[in-house]
């Protein structure tokens, strides 16, 4: 076999170029000349946290409208410029942020940034486009209403995050989408879109300084005086006893289930221990212990796994599976049993070593493409992980002990206080 391999080139302080523009936009850039392409991504604090219950889905509606027309270009003109060169650009919205991402051949990066800047700064919310989009969003909600996984997910969030922004679906409900006016959208844009708190990362066949200059050229002059601060997240209401909800969907051949609880924030010191523990519980190999019990040993499900969703606020720790409606109770019973075992004795030495090796070994793969590096750099920035995070990563992973995993598991998982959401016949 060959002995000299390409060096794993992990992003770090020496090759991530960071600059803050005078209007507050943070720019992160890194070069990769292996392919003539470039990826771009970022976010700004204009998410669903700002919207009222009556106008649920407003932030999402606004983000989806940004490319539907600007003061100088129509919807069709914007997409014609992009699609003619095989480039893509899109906006999305979450609780905290509006986010964006795109890619192009490197020669078309100026075009990509120009359209990003225009969409962010001067969207015109054309009436007919808004109505067209509204019909699309409503159809999306009608499809969501028939999706067992989506409905279980919604019920889960509503139970776990009562009276909390995380408990609301950020794509809204049909009645709230119907109630949103063009004025609501323009107001939301005026009050919440601005350069303060915005982050943009660029990776590809370009020198980092050139990338920063390009961002400066298109977004450096953006000034918004009225940009509002985000409200603080309210405290969570504790789950005192196991809560259940079943959403009935007739005519379906499979039910979806979620058994879960809150999980750590991404910044929390126990995050890595929880994550490695979760790997053993429901990821490693063929979906960890959960996959072994529910799929491999019992043949109850095609998918059965656990996952940790960690962000700036409280996260979730969930076990998901899709099973025949007749097997719902049995599957939940097996999952509860595994959770009890997990908080009683944590992971074995071998399981921890396996997951640690997996985390370290897979790193080059997750950082292979430009878009992978873009999201890695955005994570570093968003969760204050430190520019040297990927250089410290191996020791961070290796330093987690079985005791750390058990402690993290017990901190979050209480088998007598679960949230169980199901959807199906």
């Amino acid at each position, binding site marked *: *076999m*060959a002995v000299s*391999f*390409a060096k*794993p080139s992990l992003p770090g302080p020496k090759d991530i170029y960071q600059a803050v523009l005078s209007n507050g936009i943070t720019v992160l850039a890194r070069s990769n000349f*292996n*392919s*003539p*392409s470039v990826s771009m991504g970022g976010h700004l604090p204009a998410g669903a946290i700002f919207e009222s219950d009556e106008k649920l889905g407003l932030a999402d509606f606004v983000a989806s409208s940004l490319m539907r027309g600007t003061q100088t270009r129509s*919807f*069709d003109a914007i*997409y014609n410029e992009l*699609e*003619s060169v*095989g*480039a*893509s650009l*899109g906006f999305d919205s979450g609780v905290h942020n509006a986010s964006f991402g795109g*890619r*192009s*051949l490197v020669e078309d990066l100026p075009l990509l940034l120009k359209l990003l800047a225009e969409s962010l700064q001067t969207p015109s919310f054309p009436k007919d486009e808004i109505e*067209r989009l509204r*019909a*699309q969003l409503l*159809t999306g909600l009608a*499809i969501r*209403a*028939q*999706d*067992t996984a989506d409905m279980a997910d919604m019920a889960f969030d509503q139970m776990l995050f009562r009276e909390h922004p995380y408990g609301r679906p950020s794509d809204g409900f049909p009645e709230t989408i119907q109630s949103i006016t063009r004025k609501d959208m323009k107001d939301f844009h005026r009050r919440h879109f601005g350069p303060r708190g915005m982050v943009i990362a660029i990776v590809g066949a370009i020198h980092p300084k050139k990338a920063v200059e390009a961002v400066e050229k298109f977004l450096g002059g953006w000034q918004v005086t009225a940009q509002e601060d985000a409200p603080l997240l309210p405290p969570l209401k504790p789950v005192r006893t196991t809560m259940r909800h079943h959403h009935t969907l*007739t*005519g*379906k*051949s*499979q039910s979806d289930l979620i058994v879960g609880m809150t999980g750590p924030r991404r910044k929390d010191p126990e995050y890595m221990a929880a994550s490695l523990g979760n790997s053993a519980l429901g990821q*490693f*190999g*063929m979906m960890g212990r959960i996959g*072994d019990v529910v*799929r*491999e040993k019992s*043949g*109850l*499900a*095609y*998918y059965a796994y656990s996952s940790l969703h960690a962000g700036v606020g409280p996260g979730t720790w969930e076990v998901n599976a*899709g099973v*025949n409606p007749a097997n719902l109770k049995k599957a939940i019973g097996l999952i509860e049993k595994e959770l009890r075992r997990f908080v009683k004795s944590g992971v074995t030495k071998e399981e921890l070593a*396996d997951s640690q*090796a*997996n*985390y*370290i*070994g*897979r790193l*080059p*793969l997750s950082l*292979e*493409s*430009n878009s992978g590096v873009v999201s890695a750099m955005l994570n570093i920035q968003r969760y204050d992980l430190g520019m040297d995070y990927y250089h410290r990563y191996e020791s961070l992973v290796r330093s987690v002990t079985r005791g750390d995993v058990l402690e993290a598991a017990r901190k979050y998982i209480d088998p007598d206080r679960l949230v169980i959401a199901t959807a199906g016949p």
Partner: protein
Amino acid sequence: MANPITQVTLKNGMKIMLKEIHTAPIISSWVWYRVGSRDEPTGKTGISHWTEHMQFKGTKKFPANMLDKAISREGGRWNASTSHDSTRYYETMPADKIDLALRLEADRMTNSIFNEKEVASERTVIISEREGSENEPMFRLSEAMQNYAFRVHPYHHEIIGDMADLRTITRDDLYAHYRTYYVPNNAVLAIAGDFETKPMLKRVRELFERIPKGPIPTRLARPEPPQKGELHFSVEGPGETTFIQLAYHFPNATDPDYLPLQVLDSLLNGASGLSYKTSRLYRALVDKGHAVDASGWSEASIDPSLYRITITVHPNRQPEDAIAALDAEIKKLQDELIHIDEIKRAVKQARAVFAYGSENITHQAFWMGYTAMFSTYDWFTTYLNKLAKVTPKEVQRVAQKYLQPSNRIIGTYIPKGREG
């Protein structure tokens, strides 16, 4: 195209494709077998996909549980999939760990156990996989579409198979299928990534060349007779949204008409993996308010297959209006020559899509093996140049030839409301 590839056929007939890429310490290895759902007779539908599942259930040397763990422990990513024409297994690993993947693939080419108990538990897993798919309106529509489009050709059933067969296929059926098709002279090994060709080829020979070859399995291929007249069908199910799937019979990937049809597809539908909001379909159907989404796709196949257009009908509109708008758009393509700039645009889009793909080693290894299933790797490396040579006249000709009502099937998903 940079990075030429090395192609070798081993003494046992196994085809090897190697491509060095030294951009990251990663290697992706794919084994392709020339067997898919089109090789399944009635009563055995789904057996290729089920066999693929059984390939994860262990050999003596690599017992079931150990397999997953061994790959995961090294930080590798692995999976498999079954299509109409082929079954493929891949591992993408840190470069210094690829030997594990090669040993595993060599071993499970002949030594998988197909334990009776594992067959039983996998039966319910696959039934559950099918039940999950049946939840989706598009699966119900798509499955019926294949039935209507292919009465004779074995592309007529879904890859996952019919429930009746999933309940009755036995362990011995599966094992016989495995032994028939999983022979080195029916396989292609494609490896791309951070290695040197000479020592890699040596290692591949050590592991694979000793596997005895078998009789080359004959493939089921009953040509589908030309369709005589437009076909219509509908399926019903829960929901509030009407979907239309409309399919034209299309030639296979090596047919001279395939490339002009790719240009036609990019005009109708945009470039693969990109947004398609300025495509002709989108402008005619979504911008005009008949639909909330409209897109098309085809796959590069061995035998003539389908070009499918899927329309999500606007809640306040009728499906007939959407089809009329589509027909008007197709008529334009048949009556008017397109501008040469539209071909240039399609080429530029394809060039960008190729560049994005080149960021990813797994993707590059995929294309080597994939093209070997229906053509040669040249099909891939010459694609952009050939696309650039397509003329407006050729596009018009294929639009006239294939996009005829008598050559299509129209399926509608009729929603029966929330109560099913």
